[in-house]
Protein backbone atom coordinates (compact mmCIF):
# COMPACT_ATOMS: atom_id res chain seq x y z
CA UNK A 1 0.00 0.00 0.00
CA UNK A 2 3.03 2.26 -0.37
CA UNK A 3 1.50 4.24 -3.19
CA UNK A 4 -0.98 5.93 -0.83
CA UNK A 5 1.73 7.70 1.19
CA UNK A 6 2.17 11.36 0.31
CA UNK A 7 5.53 11.70 -1.40
CA UNK A 8 6.32 15.35 -1.97
CA UNK A 9 5.33 18.54 -0.17
CA UNK A 10 2.69 19.24 -2.77
CA UNK A 11 1.32 15.72 -2.41
CA UNK A 12 1.24 16.24 1.33
CA UNK A 13 -0.88 19.37 0.89
CA UNK A 14 -3.21 17.47 -1.38
CA UNK A 15 -3.46 14.58 1.12
CA UNK A 16 -7.02 13.45 0.82
CA UNK A 17 -8.90 11.78 3.65
CA UNK A 18 -11.54 10.52 1.24
CA UNK A 19 -9.07 7.97 -0.04
CA UNK A 20 -9.93 5.94 3.09
CA UNK A 21 -13.43 5.48 1.70
CA UNK A 22 -11.90 2.84 -0.55
CA UNK A 23 -11.74 -0.66 1.00
CA UNK A 24 -8.25 -1.16 -0.41
CA UNK A 25 -6.76 1.78 1.49
CA UNK A 26 -8.99 1.36 4.54
CA UNK A 27 -7.86 -2.25 5.09
CA UNK A 28 -4.29 -1.47 6.25
CA UNK A 29 -5.42 1.62 8.19
CA UNK A 30 -7.93 -0.47 10.14
CA UNK A 31 -5.17 -3.00 10.79
CA UNK A 32 -3.09 -0.31 12.45
CA UNK A 33 -5.95 0.92 14.67
CA UNK A 34 -7.07 -2.50 15.95
CA UNK A 35 -4.20 -3.31 18.38
CA UNK A 36 -4.42 0.09 20.10
CA UNK A 37 -8.16 -0.20 20.63
CA UNK A 38 -7.87 -3.80 21.79
CA UNK A 39 -5.18 -2.92 24.35
CA UNK A 40 -7.16 0.10 25.59
CA UNK A 41 -10.31 -2.02 25.85
CA UNK A 42 -8.55 -4.71 27.91
CA UNK A 43 -7.07 -2.14 30.33
CA UNK A 44 -10.26 -0.11 30.78
CA UNK A 45 -12.56 -3.13 31.15
CA UNK A 46 -10.21 -4.60 33.78
CA UNK A 47 -10.06 -1.25 35.60
CA UNK A 48 -13.84 -0.78 35.37
CA UNK A 49 -14.37 -4.28 36.75
CA UNK A 50 -11.96 -3.52 39.60
CA UNK A 51 -13.83 -0.30 40.43
CA UNK A 52 -17.15 -2.12 40.16
CA UNK A 53 -16.49 -5.11 42.40
CA UNK A 54 -13.78 -3.84 44.78
CA UNK A 55 -14.00 -0.08 45.15
CA UNK A 56 -17.66 0.91 44.69
CA UNK A 57 -19.62 0.88 47.97
CA UNK A 58 -22.62 -1.30 48.75
CA UNK A 59 -25.93 0.22 47.65
CA UNK A 60 -28.20 1.18 50.54
CA UNK A 61 -31.30 -0.23 48.82
CA UNK A 62 -30.13 -3.11 46.67
CA UNK A 63 -27.09 -4.31 48.63
CA UNK A 64 -24.48 -5.98 46.42
CA UNK A 65 -27.07 -6.89 43.76
CA UNK A 66 -26.78 -3.49 42.13
CA UNK A 67 -23.24 -4.29 40.91
CA UNK A 68 -24.85 -5.75 37.77
CA UNK A 69 -25.16 -2.08 36.73
CA UNK A 70 -21.47 -2.01 35.75
CA UNK A 71 -22.09 -4.33 32.81
CA UNK A 72 -25.83 -3.88 32.25
CA UNK A 73 -25.90 -0.12 31.61
CA UNK A 74 -22.82 0.12 29.33
CA UNK A 75 -24.10 -2.89 27.33
CA UNK A 76 -27.52 -1.25 26.98
CA UNK A 77 -25.95 2.05 25.88
CA UNK A 78 -23.92 0.33 23.17
CA UNK A 79 -26.86 -1.81 22.03
CA UNK A 80 -28.57 1.49 21.12
CA UNK A 81 -25.54 3.50 20.03
CA UNK A 82 -24.23 0.77 17.71
CA UNK A 83 -27.68 0.49 16.13
CA UNK A 84 -27.67 4.21 15.33
CA UNK A 85 -24.13 3.94 13.97
CA UNK A 86 -25.14 0.94 11.83
CA UNK A 87 -28.17 2.86 10.50
CA UNK A 88 -25.93 5.87 9.79
CA UNK A 89 -23.48 3.79 7.75
CA UNK A 90 -26.36 2.03 6.00
CA UNK A 91 -27.84 5.44 5.12
CA UNK A 92 -24.46 6.71 3.91
CA UNK A 93 -24.22 3.60 1.76
CA UNK A 94 -27.58 4.37 0.17
CA UNK A 95 -26.76 8.04 -0.43
CA UNK A 96 -23.18 7.69 -1.66
CA UNK A 97 -23.48 4.15 -3.00
CA UNK A 98 -20.23 3.43 -1.14
CA UNK A 99 -19.31 -0.22 -0.65
CA UNK A 100 -17.25 0.44 2.46
CA UNK A 101 -20.23 2.08 4.20
CA UNK A 102 -22.34 -1.01 3.64
CA UNK A 103 -19.51 -3.21 4.86
CA UNK A 104 -19.22 -1.09 8.04
CA UNK A 105 -22.95 -1.42 8.67
CA UNK A 106 -22.70 -5.19 8.16
CA UNK A 107 -19.70 -5.36 10.50
CA UNK A 108 -21.40 -3.39 13.28
CA UNK A 109 -24.61 -5.48 13.39
CA UNK A 110 -23.33 -8.63 15.19
CA UNK A 111 -21.60 -6.60 17.93
CA UNK A 112 -24.73 -4.48 18.43
CA UNK A 113 -26.84 -7.63 18.64
CA UNK A 114 -24.38 -9.13 21.14
CA UNK A 115 -24.66 -6.08 23.43
CA UNK A 116 -28.46 -6.16 23.10
CA UNK A 117 -28.50 -9.81 24.19
CA UNK A 118 -26.15 -8.98 27.09
CA UNK A 119 -28.37 -6.07 28.18
CA UNK A 120 -31.46 -8.30 28.10
CA UNK A 121 -29.89 -11.25 29.94
CA UNK A 122 -28.15 -9.16 32.61
CA UNK A 123 -31.37 -7.19 33.00
CA UNK A 124 -33.22 -10.44 33.55
CA UNK A 125 -30.62 -11.50 36.13
CA UNK A 126 -31.16 -8.16 37.85
CA UNK A 127 -34.95 -8.24 37.59
CA UNK A 128 -35.34 -11.62 39.27
CA UNK A 129 -33.92 -10.66 42.71
CA UNK A 130 -35.19 -7.04 42.67
CA UNK A 131 -38.65 -7.32 41.06
CA UNK A 132 -39.25 -11.04 41.61
CA UNK A 133 -39.59 -11.71 37.87
CA UNK A 134 -37.13 -12.67 35.11
CA UNK A 135 -39.20 -10.74 32.61
CA UNK A 136 -42.04 -8.19 32.55
CA UNK A 137 -43.68 -6.71 29.46
CA UNK A 138 -42.92 -3.12 30.31
CA UNK A 139 -42.06 -0.51 27.67
CA UNK A 140 -38.30 -0.49 28.28
CA UNK A 141 -37.87 -4.27 28.16
CA UNK A 142 -40.22 -4.76 25.24
CA UNK A 143 -38.60 -2.07 23.08
CA UNK A 144 -35.12 -3.48 23.85
CA UNK A 145 -36.37 -6.94 22.78
CA UNK A 146 -37.64 -5.36 19.54
CA UNK A 147 -34.11 -3.95 19.05
CA UNK A 148 -32.74 -7.51 19.18
CA UNK A 149 -35.30 -8.59 16.57
CA UNK A 150 -34.31 -5.62 14.36
CA UNK A 151 -30.66 -6.71 14.46
CA UNK A 152 -31.65 -10.31 13.70
CA UNK A 153 -33.91 -9.07 10.88
CA UNK A 154 -31.03 -7.02 9.48
CA UNK A 155 -28.63 -9.90 9.08
CA UNK A 156 -31.27 -12.45 8.12
CA UNK A 157 -32.33 -10.16 5.27
CA UNK A 158 -28.71 -9.84 4.15
CA UNK A 159 -28.27 -13.60 4.24
CA UNK A 160 -31.54 -14.17 2.36
CA UNK A 161 -30.63 -12.12 -0.74
CA UNK A 162 -27.92 -13.58 -2.96
CA UNK A 163 -27.03 -10.42 -4.86
CA UNK A 164 -24.74 -8.55 -2.42
CA UNK A 165 -25.64 -5.14 -3.80
CA UNK A 166 -29.37 -5.71 -3.44
CA UNK A 167 -28.90 -7.29 -0.01
CA UNK A 168 -26.98 -4.20 1.14
CA UNK A 169 -29.69 -1.85 -0.09
CA UNK A 170 -32.66 -3.79 1.29
CA UNK A 171 -31.08 -4.28 4.71
CA UNK A 172 -30.03 -0.60 4.80
CA UNK A 173 -33.67 0.42 4.41
CA UNK A 174 -34.63 -1.93 7.24
CA UNK A 175 -31.86 -0.50 9.45
CA UNK A 176 -33.01 3.07 8.78
CA UNK A 177 -36.70 2.37 9.42
CA UNK A 178 -35.84 0.47 12.62
CA UNK A 179 -33.81 3.41 13.95
CA UNK A 180 -37.08 4.94 15.18
CA UNK A 181 -37.04 2.27 17.91
CA UNK A 182 -33.88 3.71 19.54
CA UNK A 183 -35.42 6.95 20.86
CA UNK A 184 -38.44 4.87 21.91
CA UNK A 185 -36.15 2.67 24.06
CA UNK A 186 -34.29 5.67 25.45
CA UNK A 187 -37.36 7.70 26.43
CA UNK A 188 -39.61 4.72 27.29
CA UNK A 189 -38.97 5.19 31.01
CA UNK A 190 -40.20 8.78 30.71
CA UNK A 191 -43.11 8.32 28.32
CA UNK A 192 -44.63 5.30 30.02
CA UNK A 193 -44.98 4.12 33.56
CA UNK A 194 -42.36 1.39 33.63
CA UNK A 195 -41.17 -1.03 36.29
CA UNK A 196 -37.69 -0.35 34.91
CA UNK A 197 -36.08 2.55 36.75
CA UNK A 198 -35.40 5.89 35.07
CA UNK A 199 -32.02 7.00 33.78
CA UNK A 200 -29.27 7.05 36.42
CA UNK A 201 -27.14 9.27 34.24
CA UNK A 202 -28.46 12.03 32.01
CA UNK A 203 -26.93 14.97 30.21
CA UNK A 204 -29.10 17.57 31.90
CA UNK A 205 -29.20 16.46 35.54
CA UNK A 206 -26.59 15.58 38.15
CA UNK A 207 -26.17 11.79 38.23
CA UNK A 208 -28.28 10.02 40.84
CA UNK A 209 -25.41 7.88 42.10
CA UNK A 210 -22.14 7.97 44.05
CA UNK A 211 -19.17 9.39 42.16
CA UNK A 212 -17.17 6.16 42.27
CA UNK A 213 -20.12 4.13 40.93
CA UNK A 214 -20.46 6.59 38.07
CA UNK A 215 -16.72 6.44 37.40
CA UNK A 216 -16.76 2.62 37.29
CA UNK A 217 -19.68 2.65 34.86
CA UNK A 218 -18.11 5.26 32.57
CA UNK A 219 -14.72 3.50 32.54
CA UNK A 220 -16.49 0.27 31.59
CA UNK A 221 -18.47 2.11 28.90
CA UNK A 222 -15.31 3.53 27.30
CA UNK A 223 -13.82 0.03 27.50
CA UNK A 224 -16.87 -1.35 25.67
CA UNK A 225 -16.51 1.44 23.10
CA UNK A 226 -12.89 0.53 22.35
CA UNK A 227 -13.82 -3.16 22.28
CA UNK A 228 -16.56 -2.36 19.75
CA UNK A 229 -14.16 -0.40 17.51
CA UNK A 230 -11.60 -3.21 17.58
CA UNK A 231 -14.11 -5.99 16.89
CA UNK A 232 -15.94 -4.05 14.17
CA UNK A 233 -12.66 -3.25 12.40
CA UNK A 234 -11.56 -6.90 12.59
CA UNK A 235 -14.91 -7.89 11.09
CA UNK A 236 -14.88 -5.23 8.37
CA UNK A 237 -11.43 -6.46 7.31
CA UNK A 238 -12.81 -10.01 7.07
CA UNK A 239 -15.74 -8.61 5.11
CA UNK A 240 -13.40 -6.82 2.68
CA UNK A 241 -11.40 -10.01 2.13
CA UNK A 242 -14.49 -12.15 1.61
CA UNK A 243 -16.09 -9.74 -0.84
CA UNK A 244 -12.97 -9.24 -2.90
CA UNK A 245 -12.75 -12.50 -4.81
CA UNK A 246 -9.34 -11.81 -6.26
CA UNK A 247 -7.78 -10.74 -2.97
CA UNK A 248 -4.54 -10.23 -4.83
CA UNK A 249 -3.48 -7.25 -2.78
CA UNK A 250 -3.51 -9.25 0.43
CA UNK A 251 -1.43 -12.14 -0.78
CA UNK A 252 1.66 -10.25 0.17
CA UNK A 253 0.41 -10.04 3.74
CA UNK A 254 0.30 -13.81 3.82
CA UNK A 255 3.80 -14.13 2.40
CA UNK A 256 2.62 -15.52 -0.91
CA UNK A 257 3.94 -12.75 -3.12
CA UNK A 258 2.19 -11.29 -6.12
CA UNK A 259 0.70 -13.58 -8.71
Amino acid sequence: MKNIEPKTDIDRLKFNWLQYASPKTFYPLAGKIIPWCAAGAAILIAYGLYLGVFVAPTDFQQGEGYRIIFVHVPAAWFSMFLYLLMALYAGLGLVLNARLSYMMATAIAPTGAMFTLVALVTGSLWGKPMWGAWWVWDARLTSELILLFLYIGYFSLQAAIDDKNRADKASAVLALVGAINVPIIYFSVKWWNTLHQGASVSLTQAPAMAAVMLKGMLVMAIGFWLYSIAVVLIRVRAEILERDSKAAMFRQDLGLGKS
Partner: protein
Amino acid sequence: MQWHSISEFLAMGGYAFYVWGSFGVTFGCMAVELLSLKSRNKRIAQAIKQEAI
Protein backbone atom coordinates in the same frame (compact mmCIF):
# COMPACT_ATOMS: atom_id res chain seq x y z
CA MET B 1 -11.83 -2.16 49.50
CA GLN B 2 -15.31 -3.33 50.41
CA TRP B 3 -14.58 -6.88 51.48
CA HIS B 4 -13.30 -8.55 54.66
CA SER B 5 -12.87 -12.07 53.32
CA ILE B 6 -12.81 -14.01 50.07
CA SER B 7 -15.98 -15.93 50.95
CA GLU B 8 -17.79 -12.65 51.62
CA PHE B 9 -16.58 -11.34 48.28
CA LEU B 10 -17.75 -14.44 46.45
CA ALA B 11 -21.13 -14.44 48.21
CA MET B 12 -21.90 -10.87 46.99
CA GLY B 13 -24.33 -10.32 49.86
CA GLY B 14 -26.45 -13.28 48.73
CA TYR B 15 -26.62 -12.10 45.09
CA ALA B 16 -23.69 -14.27 43.93
CA PHE B 17 -25.63 -16.08 41.18
CA TYR B 18 -27.06 -12.86 39.74
CA VAL B 19 -23.93 -10.70 39.98
CA TRP B 20 -21.38 -13.31 38.85
CA GLY B 21 -23.90 -14.64 36.35
CA SER B 22 -24.20 -11.19 34.77
CA PHE B 23 -20.45 -10.70 34.55
CA GLY B 24 -20.07 -14.23 33.20
CA VAL B 25 -22.68 -13.71 30.50
CA THR B 26 -21.16 -10.36 29.46
CA PHE B 27 -17.56 -11.48 29.14
CA GLY B 28 -18.61 -14.91 27.87
CA CYS B 29 -20.49 -13.28 24.97
CA MET B 30 -17.48 -11.09 24.16
CA ALA B 31 -15.19 -14.14 24.20
CA VAL B 32 -17.53 -16.06 21.88
CA GLU B 33 -17.58 -13.09 19.49
CA LEU B 34 -13.78 -12.89 19.43
CA LEU B 35 -13.38 -16.66 18.93
CA SER B 36 -15.89 -16.74 16.06
CA LEU B 37 -14.01 -13.87 14.35
CA LYS B 38 -10.74 -15.74 14.81
CA SER B 39 -12.10 -18.86 13.12
CA ARG B 40 -13.63 -16.74 10.33
CA ASN B 41 -10.21 -15.17 9.65
CA LYS B 42 -8.63 -18.62 9.63
CA ARG B 43 -11.14 -19.79 7.02
CA ILE B 44 -10.46 -16.74 4.85
CA ALA B 45 -6.69 -17.18 5.06
CA GLN B 46 -7.04 -20.82 4.01
CA ALA B 47 -9.29 -19.90 1.10
CA ILE B 48 -6.85 -17.25 -0.13
CA LYS B 49 -3.89 -19.63 0.16
CA GLN B 50 -5.79 -22.26 -1.80
CA GLU B 51 -6.56 -19.69 -4.48
CA ALA B 52 -2.88 -18.78 -4.73
CA ILE B 53 -1.91 -22.40 -5.46
